[in-house]
């Protein structure tokens, strides 16, 4: 473990900033829906903040990600501006997809956010193609495919990991194992660790505590370095826990109350915050200021979104094909 990469102080603070942004954005999203100001399907990433934050500090804007409907944490960590996100989920013309994609299809190529899919398992086949492009060009970029533990049981997982391994693609498969595939617990749907399946494809597979920023950073750093060096893909199984039901409004009666209470008591965001202060990496005042700035940015983004126009119906004919339809 000693030769593993450790985030320096500035990187630790940046990881925390991204985590705090995701947490604050999630809390605001739920509040805005509850207040009736916005109607959208919402898949909370609360509890999973560490994974994309610790991964994305190892990526540049030129690197690609593909993520899923539960993806606002991945998108924000990769640099999606709040205004573009909020206007999109509000279905406004100022949204990153002009309001035509919505929360399950957020796309922002400027920061390498290439695909957000609402189909379980579908990030992986497309991530391979992005990585194939990088391999052909030799541009040194890597692609991160995010998916949940449920997606590890879909056929696309097998096809994609096999192809990536055979072609030695610069791709990192990140399974965010939050213990739940919709309403069904992981131990009811698989007999093995997701990471152990990597052996079947001849690629490294690592199970890591996805709620530990240091562990997550080190594992991601190594996998990304491997991919950049042309050594091929890695499967990372990042263990975490989904704080809420599958979709907002789901009463989550199927989730064990004690397990959930335990996970929430070990909330990775305040835990990392306390650690940064305890180890002298940051001060309480510094972090409070950062959090206040995030709240202000979210305030502005929400108001910007809700004040923006809805797209006109002429948009039904646009972007179906390059040429506008008659």
């Amino acid at each position, binding site marked *: 473990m000693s030769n593993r990469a450790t985030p320096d102080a500035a990187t630790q603070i940046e990881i925390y900033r991204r985590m705090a942004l995701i947490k604050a954005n999630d809390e605001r999203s739920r509040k805005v829906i509850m207040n009736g100001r916005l109607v959208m399907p919402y898949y909370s990433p609360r509890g999973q903040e560490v994974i994309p934050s610790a991964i994305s500090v190892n990526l540049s804007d030129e690197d*690609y990600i*593909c993520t899923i409907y539960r993806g606002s944490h991945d998108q924000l960590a990769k640099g999606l501006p709040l205004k573009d996100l909020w206007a999109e989920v509000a279905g406004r013309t100022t*949204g*990153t*997809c*002009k*309001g*035509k*994609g919505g929360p399950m*299809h957020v*796309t*922002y*190529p400027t920061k390498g956010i*290439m*695909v957000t*899919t*609402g*189909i379980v398992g*579908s990030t*992986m*086949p*497309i*991530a*391979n*193609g*992005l*990585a*194939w*492009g*990088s391999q*052909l060009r030799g541009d040194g970029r890597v*692609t991160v495919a995010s998916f949940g533990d449920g997606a590890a049981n879909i*056929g*696309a997982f097998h*096809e*994609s990991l*096999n*192809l990536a391994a*055979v*072609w030695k693609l610069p791709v990192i498969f990140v399974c965010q194992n939050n213990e739940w595939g919709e309403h069904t617990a992981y131990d009811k749907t698989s007999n093995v660790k997701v990471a152990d399946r990597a052996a079947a494809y001849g690629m490294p597979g690592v199970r890591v505590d996805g709620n530990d920023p240091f562990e997550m950073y080190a594992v991601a750093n190594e996998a990304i370095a491997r991919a950049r060096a042309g050594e091929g893909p890695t499967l990372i199984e990042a263990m975490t826990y989904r704080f809420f039901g599958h979709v907002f409004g789901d009463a989550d009666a199927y989730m064990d109350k004690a397990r959930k209470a335990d996970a929430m008591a070990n909330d990775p965001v305040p835990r990392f915050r306390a650690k940064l202060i305890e180890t002298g990496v940051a001060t309480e005042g510094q972090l409070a200021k950062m959090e206040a700035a995030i709240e202000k940015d979210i305030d502005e983004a929400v108001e910007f979104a809700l004040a923006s126009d809805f797209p006109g119906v002429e948009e039904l004919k*646009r*972007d*179906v*094909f*390059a040429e506008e339809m008659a």
Partner: protein
Amino acid sequence: MNAETPMAPANSAKAAKANILQGINAAIADAMEEDENVIALGEDLADPEEGGVCGVTKGLSSRFGEHRVRSTPISEQAIIGAAIGASLVGFKPIAEIMLMNFTTVAMDMIVNHAAKLRFMSGGQTHVPIVIRTMTGTGFASGGQHCDYLEAWFAHTAGIKVVAPSSPQDAYGLMRSAIDDPDPVLFIENLPTYWSPAEAPEKGHRVPIGKANVLSEGSDVTIIAYARMIQEATPAVAKLREAGISAELIDLRTIAPWDQETVVKSVAKTGRAIIVHEAVTPFGAGAEIAAVLNEQLFGRLKAPVKRLGGAFCPVPFSKPLETAFAPQTADIVAAAEALIKS
């Protein structure tokens, strides 16, 4: 299936003969020569694997390298996914799904992703891929190897569907499909791969969405595509002998189909027969018939007739397989019935 040597791609004399397989091969080769972003992938595609099961891509990997022409595992979702991903960053991938029935295992990638990413991203990304796939009855391959499923894709917003019936159209439509900024499903007919005809000219383009009037007539319009052109062409001759003047339109593109040419023709003849190998119910013929009724109601001299495959899985036994798809005699009989009605 015996693979043949692809024709010489350059400077072929205009009178030279080629078959459809060679037309497709030449189109891909010429596109790869001109643009290094054109890449190809699919099962058995590269030369060590014989350039595809029928040899359509023979010679390409030797010429352009196996990094650009890749044989893949038997993994249709992974094939289309890889094509989509590469297309998002500027490549022009040509993905082969060996048989049209195998598109069924890649439908999520084709329908939910390739067809929709442009729209769902608000135009920020687009998917300029070509999906090549072959199909067609005639080789006694039974129920899972020769369906025509074009209506499924034509019913999906965001994907174009073409089905050439000649070497020239195969070349020209392939070049246009590769040029196209959106996904194009390119349907190849297996039994007619080796039918020789006039060779295509290098660089020739057939516009997507443009039908071809193969013969002009005044009594009835026959609208067909793919192998059905080979059934309809002799039908036109037989009808002429019987004193019936039939206009034959090769649709070439199923989505978006050339309404202008078809409606103009049927406005003239007042009668229409749509012929396809796909099963009749909910097929492309139903859509064309509906548009003809919407636009020409009152001017039609007879109800629009559809001739399609029997509504059953494609049978194996030879007499049944032959009876499954429309034949020349069916087209002749349908035309005569329309004239009499």
